[in-house]
């Protein structure tokens, strides 16, 4: 096949794959009165910004909550996972293998089951419908994955670097902070991106643990929109477009980290 033909075919496949994304954007600009037009408007020639106005009017608090929850989850995940990764990769204590195994298993537990357990605990502790409660629950999606990412990455740091620091009299903690962390930038970026994205996208924990909260994340904002049966699909899709911004930014700014995160561990090099 000639080069151009291949590129053409590639463009076609991509267009088909991304059609739903296009459709979301298209509907977000479509007027209520045109929403059920037959044939449907394939392009919002005569569009409206009503949907986005609704986002500004109603969804900003939800977006703010999601931002806080996302950042909180990133912070908590990094604090827990980076030291653990260092220990597993470089200090290799007895029982480290078992811990890695447990982390691997932990990733496979369905979120909905974790949510039920958390609900029972949170109800008793009175932390249902709170932001810290949601951050804590959301972090369970990211922590096992992140420890394993850090372990894989830090295993690649040459021992000489660490030994040199030790000879200079640095403590383990000092070595970790001043030598290991600075060279682990890529792992930190990867972990932060995924932790943020997963917390931002979380629906299971939000609906079970924060369903009656004063501060709800954007996923619930969209869910309430759909549930209210108001059929204001331009507003629903406009919110969906706005909720997709972090994912889009991530792909544009940090594509190589994303691909690394997807494949890390699944394939041996």
């Amino acid at each position, binding site marked *: 096949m000639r080069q151009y033909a291949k*590129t053409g075919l590639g463009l076609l496949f991509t267009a088909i794959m991304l059609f*739903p*994304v296009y459709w*979301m954007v298209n509907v977000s600009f479509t007027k209520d009165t045109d929403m059920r037009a037959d044939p449907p408007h394939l392009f919002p020639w005569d569009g409206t910004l009503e949907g986005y106005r609704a986002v500004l009017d109603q969804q900003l608090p939800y977006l703010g909550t999601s931002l806080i929850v996302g950042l909180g989850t990133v912070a908590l995940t990094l604090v827990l996972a980076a030291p653990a990764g260092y*220990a597993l990769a470089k200090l290799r204590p007895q029982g480290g293998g078992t811990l890695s195994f447990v982390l*691997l298993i932990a990733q*496979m537990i369905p979120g909905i089951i974790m949510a039920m357990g*958390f609900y029972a605990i949170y109800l008793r502790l009175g932390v249902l419908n709170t932001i810290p409660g949601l951050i804590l629950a959301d972090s369970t999606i990211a922590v096992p994955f992140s420890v394993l990412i850090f372990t894989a990455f830090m295993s690649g740091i040459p021992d000489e670097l660490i030994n040199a620091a030790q000879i200079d009299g640095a403590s383990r903690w000092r070595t970790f902070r001043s030598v290991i962390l600075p060279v682990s930038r890529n792992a930190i970026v990867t972990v932060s991106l995924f932790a943020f994205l997963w917390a931002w996208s979380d629906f299971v924990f939000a609906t079970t643990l924060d369903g009656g909260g004063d501060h709800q994340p954007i996923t619930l904002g969209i869910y309430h929109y759909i549930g209210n049966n108001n059929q204001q699909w331009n507003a629903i899709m406009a919110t969906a477009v706005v909720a997709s911004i972090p994912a889009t930014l991530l792909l544009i700014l940090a594509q190589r980290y994303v691909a690394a995160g997807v494949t890390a561990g699944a394939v041996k090099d």
Partner: protein
Amino acid sequence: MTSHASTLARTREKPRVRPAGHDRLAAWAFLAPVVVYLVAFYAYPLYRNLDLSLRHYTVRSFVRGDAPFSGLDNYRTVFADPTFGPALLHTLVFTVASIAVQFAAGLALAVFFAQHFRLSSTLRALFLVPWLLPLIVSASTWSWMLNSDSGVVNHALSLVNVDAVNWLTSPDWALASVVIANIWIGIPFNLVVLHSGLQAIPAEVHEAAAIDGANGWQRFWRVTFPLLRPVSAITLLLGLVYTLKVFDIIWIMTKGGPADASTTFATWSYRLSFGNLLPEFGPGAAVGNLLIVMALVFGLLYIRIQRRQSL
């Protein structure tokens, strides 16, 4: 989401020089936060869930925590429930159908994108979009696209003279609808993992086969596919573990309905615990625990295969 059996294997393979006592202490000091965390926020919720499934709960006793122990009653209730059979069947159909199509499409696309042409890496990156979008975004977009009266899918079908399908509202099509949406979300993962698997096959192998006169089709089935088998096994098993637990998409698109037509273990368990005015926490937790067992069977198989490969 991926797992890291290779990391595990690597830590095991390393020739073990036991750190001295002081270092061992330092190591566990670094691990302490995560260990405490795992016990408090993984083990304890799971224990609570197990406990829930072994007691007879009412809303009152749930709050007060004094529900009587009822042994395996909740499990008996669940097995005898008329929803059990359909939920099991739908879970299997949903999982197998999703994975089969995702894998086939992902593999075909991986092979296609492995040829270097202009824009190939950019386009491949764009394929990641569905995987990165929040599930509620994908699910609500598909809901509207599959709308019976005004959805673009039915409009497209009408162009080729196919009658409108009640995708989300007819019991015959609801499961198919959520499978379609889930396939769309899962293709990127399969594409990316299989693509990097393809990259690991040395180019000389293909060249040798080409010199021997193998055509493209033969090269794929006789060379590429067998060499890709380890990566394929991993991709399929991971897909299995992650597809079994899909909840968001189904719940948002159909709530498991109409009339249980798209109910899986995940949505059933949620509905029992949270979906009704009168929550049935016990049976809900029991269904959840059955789901864990299913996920772990495939999960352990995955770890086994991954380890054997890295030896």
